[in-house]
């Protein structure tokens, strides 16, 4: 039955093409995913710095601090969704994400979940105009960033 054999080879070809195409697509996706999350993290770093610099002043602009805290609060619950499989060191794209994110998903989820309550608290303190409270609380927020980086981010 020649036709069916031809069909089979066509199917194999199609499957191979789909696989290759899928891999290429995944690679493009991985690059986009990694670049997007790095940009988001950078925005969080900028917001942290702005709050820190602001809190150094004798009379900090607490509305600005609250706005920056809100930026981070907006990102916080999403962090764990920024690391789909295939976007780790094996992606062949420059990333500082460590393989542990995928080998220890529970640990990573726990590290990610620590940020939101701390940053929410900071935002509330800033809205209440509590300078001393905000100065103390930002250390807790910084600690959750560092806690995750130490374990799941390269150097």
């Amino acid at each position, binding site marked *: 039955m020649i036709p069916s054999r031809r069909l089979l080879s066509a199917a194999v070809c199609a499957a191979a093409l789909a696989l290759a195409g899928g891999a290429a697509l995944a690679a493009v996706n991985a690059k986009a995913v990694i670049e997007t999350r790095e940009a988001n*993290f*950078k925005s*969080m*770093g*900028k*917001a*942290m*710095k*702005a709050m*820190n*610099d602001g809190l*150094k002043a004798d009379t900090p602009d607490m509305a600005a601090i609250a706005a920056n805290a809100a930026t981070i609060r907006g990102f916080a619950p999403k962090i764990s969704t920024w690391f789909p499989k295939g976007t780790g060191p094996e992606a062949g794209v420059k990333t500082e994400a460590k393989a542990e994110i995928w080998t220890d998903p529970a640990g990573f989820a726990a590290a990610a979940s620590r940020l939101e309550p701390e940053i929410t608290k900071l935002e509330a303190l800033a809205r209440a105009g509590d300078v001393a409270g905000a100065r103390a609380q*930002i250390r807790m*927020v*910084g600690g959750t*960033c*560092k806690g995750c*980086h130490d374990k799941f*981010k390269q150097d």
Partner: protein
Amino acid sequence: MSESPTPVWDGPTRLFHWALAILVLVAWLTAGEQMTLHRGAGYAILGLLAFRVWWGFAGGSTARFSQFVRGPSAIRAYLSASRQGHAPERAGHNPLGALSVIALLGLVALQAGLGLFAIDEDGFEGGPLSDRIDFDLARQIAEWHELSFRLIQALVVLHLAAILYYVFRKREDLLRPMVTGVRRFSGPVQGLVRAPLWRLAVGVGIGLAVAFAASRGFKLG
């Protein structure tokens, strides 16, 4: 090697050296972890360097830059004399070692200077001047801060290798004089000429002032 011990390094220069070595080690071990200590070590190093610059102009004879910073021809002359085994004995750095002294002092100054502007990726732990610049630049400077530390590590390895080379190949013990201040030469050698005490007092004042100002981010009041 029977000539009586000749003074070669004054106390302040020796104290400077060992304090610098210890503080660089402290800064290394605390980097990224104990940032309050890390910055503290950095400010102390800036104070030490300010003292050393003053001492390089006003200190004991062997600490003076004018005595050991020499041109390429002096280095060539030293090298060829040394190869033939009759480099003149002298108190103080030889013209080649002086290069390493300058490089070490310069790099450590660069290191601490960059640290003042650096910030970690959390945007959280930063140098006292990082609030003058934006996050991207402060992160870039932190990368340079790390890079210049790699250079310091390489130079310190070279520094220690050179000292070992002098001990084992040239039978010159440079380490003991840096500890005790005195050295035995095989013939008479012009020893250290010490600086008056008031210059030490001025230098200590300069060092303390610089360390304090750096810790305050050079902000007045």
